[in-house]
């Protein structure tokens, strides 16, 4: 009988700890820049509605980005981004599923800044590719702030740049991620 009680208690505990392990946000920020020295204007966009979930126990980290959510200063650039480059009606979402590979070095219960490495698969424009980058996990007042900066080669994801503007749009997009996550209940 004792064993059953212990088992049940363990189950309950397991469920509870699971729930507290995960953190999420729906208002994460992703910024990208594909400006070259020859660009007549800055080619940059910001998405402020990124969904991100992290499991502090396993280090699993997942992002979901609605491509139509990228905002640009110039309306025409936004149109070209959606229509011609990422084809956001055909491929509405970009997803990243990966892991903090050195998750054990992060103490999620103590405030601090922890440099980490993240590895996983990103699916953009219908193409899945491995992505590896170093980032930063900051713990502050029970919140997790995940930030990272990395670059992707647009051609890897079949995002083609017409020859006419090939010197004005960078072949690599630098991407900056910043997500402030709260406990998932």
């Amino acid at each position: 009988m004792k064993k059953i009680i212990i088992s049940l208690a363990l189950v309950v505990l397991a469920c509870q700890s699971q729930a507290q392990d995960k953190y999420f946000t729906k208002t994460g920020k992703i910024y990208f820049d594909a400006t070259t020295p020859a660009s007549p204007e800055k080619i940059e966009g910001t998405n402020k509605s990124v969904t991100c979930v992290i499991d502090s126990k396993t280090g699993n980290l997942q992002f979901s980005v609605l491509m139509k959510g990228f905002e640009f200063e110039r309306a025409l650039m936004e149109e070209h981004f959606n229509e011609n480059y990422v084809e956001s009606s055909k491929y509405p979402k970009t997803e990243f599923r990966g892991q903090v590979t050195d998750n054990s070095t992060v103490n999620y219960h103590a405030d601090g800044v922890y440099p980490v490495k993240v590895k996983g698969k990103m699916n953009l424009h219908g193409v899945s590719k491995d992505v590896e980058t170093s980032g930063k996990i900051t713990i502050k007042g029970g919140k997790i702030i995940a930030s990272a900066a990395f670059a992707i080669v647009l051609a890897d994801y079949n995002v083609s740049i017409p020859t006419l503007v090939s010197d004005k749009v960078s072949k690599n997009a630098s991407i900056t991620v910043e997500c402030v996550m709260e406990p998932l209940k």
Partner: protein
Amino acid sequence: MKKLHLAATCLFIFLFSSQQSLAQDDLLSLVAKDKPKKERIKYAFKSPRVINGHSMEFLNPRTMDFRILHRFGPLDQGYKNFFGFDQANMRMGLDFGIFHNLMVGIGRSNYKKEVDGYIKFAPVRQSTGPGSFPVTIALVSGMTLNTSPWEDPAKQNFYTSRLAYYFQTIIGRKFSESFTFQLSPTLVHLNIVPLQTQSNDIYALGAGARMKVSKRVAITVDYFHNFNGLEEGVTFDPISVGFDIETGGHVFQLHFSNATGMNERAFIMETTNDWAKKQMRFGFNLSRVFQLGKKKEKKKAEPKGNIITIINK
């Protein structure tokens, strides 16, 4: 007792493992999905004009479209007129996007030295999601002013005789990423007509379509049927067929058309060439869009206390 224990262990393993695997596979599914939002269908046409006629598309707010239109001479004259290139009519225009569903424009054509202006407004636009609407309905009201010298200065001329008006309703739908179709019933009112037998109110029905052939190239067709204003054998329905080519900041609309006029009054009323006699003309519309002001930031409630800025300090 033992059986109970086993069952409990199994339950424990089952629960734990299922949660574990769920966590590994799809963390994103744990987050409640956002409610689907009403979303406006965008980019039905590459330009606010199909070729000659207005399209269901609008300029983005705070942008200006500088349009240069050329219509060359009829092709049937052959080499002696260099297939029409020896002769050109043009219209220069400025169009302004004010709201996503409101724009105005002004232009001047050398044909009849005509100045035209219009205002275009869409009470409803095609959208998806809750409360969606299947079509865009846009209303256009325009005016043309003939500034050429009076044909007969001897008679008493009135300023109002230089004016004509047009009113148009555009009902259009983007059926798929590549195909858009629209109908546009139009009324052209002329303050003065050359013959007493002619009506001052001309009714026409326009049809416009776009078929995308690649990300940056589309085929367009623009047609108007004039119900009561055509003169047998003299004026014809304007038919235009062309390509939209997008090159970064410019949109080129290259086309063949039998119409010379570049405003509603002129191409609906005064198209004197006939496709059947191979009298079509080559022409192009060049559109360059400028951003006039910054895009308005969508006001969203920022999460309380911006931690990032605190930390960065």
